């Protein structure tokens, strides 16, 4: 019998005796160390010494919600181009995209940037052998301090992306998702998606400016999981933040909330398709919604819980309409969408939509049964260990805690919070948030 090594370490410093019998994980702490770096960066560390590797993730407020409307795609393009080369600095020669990729390959390490709707993220994965880790951290810091922003590379990448967009536009799934986002989010930046025109307006000097305005130490949330201690983590954070501190700490304008839908909207698009694509939904919840847990557990029952959810059992298992049917919430800093999705043979689209709508209406009206709630809670509580059983999963969890300012012991109380949800909580939360008579329904390719 044992347990997370890092967990053992912490507990070993405390009392030894009670551990012998206790199932450790169920009530055990995930020891997240947290401190603020002098640059203002918030640091979150989980020591996980079993494998000689380290994952670092830096999140800042620079996701696509910060894209200017005319340059939709700027955050993602900025993230892409961050790997396109490093400018020369005192004593160090410039590295073009190939030299840079080779330098990372020679270290056996990975470094990259990405942009989601809310976050601009930098990620490093390295072995912790000292000579390798030191060089990997130095290279990442150099790349963060002096990206080259080469215009020729952007021109090439832009052409590739525009060509890929044109190909994607021929897919009914792409059509459906773009129309759905436009209908649900309206003018809100969550609904903005790049197209050929917005990509053509993006220049590399705008990337540089975007990067300097958003990727700043004072708003950085740095999560580290791996075989290092606090002192080493603090040194790494210090090197990274030194690279960003010249950006200062420019204030960012507030971003408006997603407006609720005023009326139902149905968008049917004829398409020569093998399957109809169906998306039904509306603005959902913010991550900070006080009903987050009832909505999360409720959706698990409705369409998030895999083979045993109501939607799967009614649409797929009972009627064989669809291979894939689901519902989800996409909570973020703003109300990300609530969405039901399914694909089905074009001639049975209307029947499948009817079933999905009826399942939703009944769920909102009546909530789950006590037995369904019990089954969902059993699944979530008993499966909790599977949410944190690798460094990668822990990193995602820690980064979420950091980003949303959740309590450091959030994971320790997660199963209790799941258990506390009642049928009435779910009914109330869905009733407040989800209006079955004001849904967006996008159907591409039905007959």
């Amino acid at each position: 019998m044992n347990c997370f090594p890092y967990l053992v370490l912490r507990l070993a410093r405390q009392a030894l005796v009670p551990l012998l019998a206790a199932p450790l994980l169920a009530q055990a702490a995930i020891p997240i160390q947290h401190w603020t770096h002098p640059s203002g960066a918030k640091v979150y560390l989980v020591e996980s010494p079993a494998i000689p590797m380290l994952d670092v993730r830096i999140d800042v407020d620079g996701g696509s919600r910060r894209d200017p409307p005319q340059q939709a795609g700027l955050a993602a393009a900025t993230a892409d181009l961050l790997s396109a080369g490093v400018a020369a600095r005192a004593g160090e020669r410039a590295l073009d995209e190939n030299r840079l990729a080779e330098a990372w390959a020679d270290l056996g390490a990975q470094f990259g940037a990405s942009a989601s709707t809310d976050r601009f993220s930098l990620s490093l994965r390295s072995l912790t052998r000292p000579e390798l880790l030191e060089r990997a951290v130095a290279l990442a810091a150099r790349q963060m301090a002096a990206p080259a922003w080469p215009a020729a590379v952007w021109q090439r990448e832009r052409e590739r992306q525009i060509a890929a967009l044109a190909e994607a536009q021929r897919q009914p799934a792409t059509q459906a998702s773009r129309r759905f986002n436009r209908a649900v989010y309206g003018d809100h930046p969550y609904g903005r998606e790049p197209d050929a025109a917005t990509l053509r307006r993006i220049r590399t000097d705008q990337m540089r400016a975007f990067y300097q305005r958003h990727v700043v130490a004072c708003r950085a949330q740095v999560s580290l999981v791996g075989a290092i201690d606090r002192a080493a983590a603090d040194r790494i954070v210090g090197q990274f933040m030194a690279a960003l501190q010249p950006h200062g700490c420019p204030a960012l304008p507030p971003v408006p909330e997603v407006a609720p839908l005023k009326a139902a909207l149905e968008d049917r698009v004829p398409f020569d398709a093998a399957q109809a694509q169906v998306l039904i939904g509306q603005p959902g919840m913010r991550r900070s919604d006080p009903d987050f847990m009832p909505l999360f557990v409720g959706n698990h029952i409705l369409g998030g819980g895999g083979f045993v959810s109501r939607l799967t059992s009614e649409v797929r298992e009972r009627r064989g309409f669809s291979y894939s049917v689901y519902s989800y919430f996409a909570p973020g800093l703003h109300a990300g969408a609530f969405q039901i999705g399914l694909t089905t043979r074009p001639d049975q689209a209307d029947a499948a939509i009817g079933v999905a709508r009826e399942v939703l209406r009944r769920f909102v009206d009546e909530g789950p049964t006590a037995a369904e709630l019990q089954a969902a809670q059993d699944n979530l509580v008993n499966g909790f260990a599977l949410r944190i059983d690798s460094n990668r999963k822990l990193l995602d969890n820690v980064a979420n805690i950091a980003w949303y300012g959740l309590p450091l012991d959030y994971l320790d109380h997660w199963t209790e919070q799941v258990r506390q949800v009642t049928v009435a909580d779910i009914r109330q939360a869905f009733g407040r948030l989800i209006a079955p008579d004001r849904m967006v329904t996008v159907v591409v390719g039905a007959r």
Partner: protein
Amino acid sequence: MKRFFLCVWRPWVAILSLVCGATAAAAPPVAAGPQQFTLSNGMTLIVQPDHRAPTVAHMLWVRVGSMDEVDGSSGVAHVLEHMMFKGTPDLKPGEFSRRVAALGGRENAFTSRDATAYHQQVSREHLEAVMRLEADRFERNQWDDEEFIKELGVVKEERRQRTEESPRARFFEAVNAQVFQTSPYRRPVIGWMSDLDALTPQDAREFYRRWYVPANAAVVVAGDVDVARVRELAEAIYGRIPARALPPRKPRDEIGQAGPRRLEFRAAAEQAVVSLNWHAPQLADPAAQDAGSQNALALAVLAAVLDGYGVNRLERALVQTKGPAGRVADSVGASYGLFGRGPQLFSLTAVPARGVAPERVVQALRGEVARLAREGVSEAELQRVKIQWAASETYQLDSVFNQARELGSYWVNGWSPGAGPALMARLQAVSAAQVRAVAQRLLSDEDLNIAVLVPDANRARVAHSGPPPTLSRH
């Protein structure tokens, strides 16, 4: 490729035995490598302890995939995989999934050309429960015709979603049938639509009875377990299933190719696709010294040099192209099937840049192989590939599920559970001269299949066709 580490655990031995007291003393002091046993009925058991977290991955592998089907019943291996969730004398349809869900488990299954696998991830205390559920359906899968008809509808939707809907998926289905003429690999894993239309409940039941026998299956358990205890459980739960004879397998080898073949596939796509496929030798086992196996190892390095890390040879030659002629391709890749139950390919794939004739892309791809044959690879390129592989060995330790999956795939191929480290050692020993030699001697016109997806705006978007080589139930 990947595997398992011993040394990194050692610093923890002292602390673990302190904290975990008597029970720790009973378990092996460090996480050892995988161990393999044969149960009394011929079923294989492979156990990989990993004590980082109190969770377990449990997989049941059956050495039967789409390559074991016969013409007219393509897709039956995968349909049966779906039907395995539809009951036993003690479980109603869907009850299997409900029970696993109640345990907090994650579950699914997948079918490939070579194998079918069922898997659950659970907290360690629920291992026995999922073993019992899995053994029950392995021995006593049972459902009525009506369930079959409904599920066949789901599988056809799966085919529509994966294949019919995607010009590229249909193209690669056609490429596959071009490259393989007599090997059963020519059929798509999900099956041709007309075969699915004609599939009967009896087809699935017969396939099940024929292939789901203990000697054709392996249980793989990775995670926070004690090897001796798992062995006891497996013997009691799986080992009691009656042994049955495994039917003979016929070789159905791929006929030799004699000269290049070409395929033009027209579809309502925006972008063209070019696919070059050579029949290639494969690695018989990680210790094999025959010429084919030596060449296979060198081909694995060759593929990695062409397409192994961020910015590689193909990318530089075709995507970063400078000069008046401009960019050749929007994307490009190389892949090689190092081992498998059936014949393997060396493949180059590219999406031509807008306005570039696919033929120019074909020539550019072949030009890169020719250049490699002429100039060889540099020591730096070779080292870079090896460093990446070595590092990925460590990174892959992070996922217990991937460890189980890898052990299962070695077993399917008839390899020992220690194949991972052995394979890595062989790859690390490949020299630049060997890589150059395979580029010179293999990958000739004799074995080449050239296929082009040609965009054709006048074509209907939708037609009939295929899948990726592995299908997951979800």
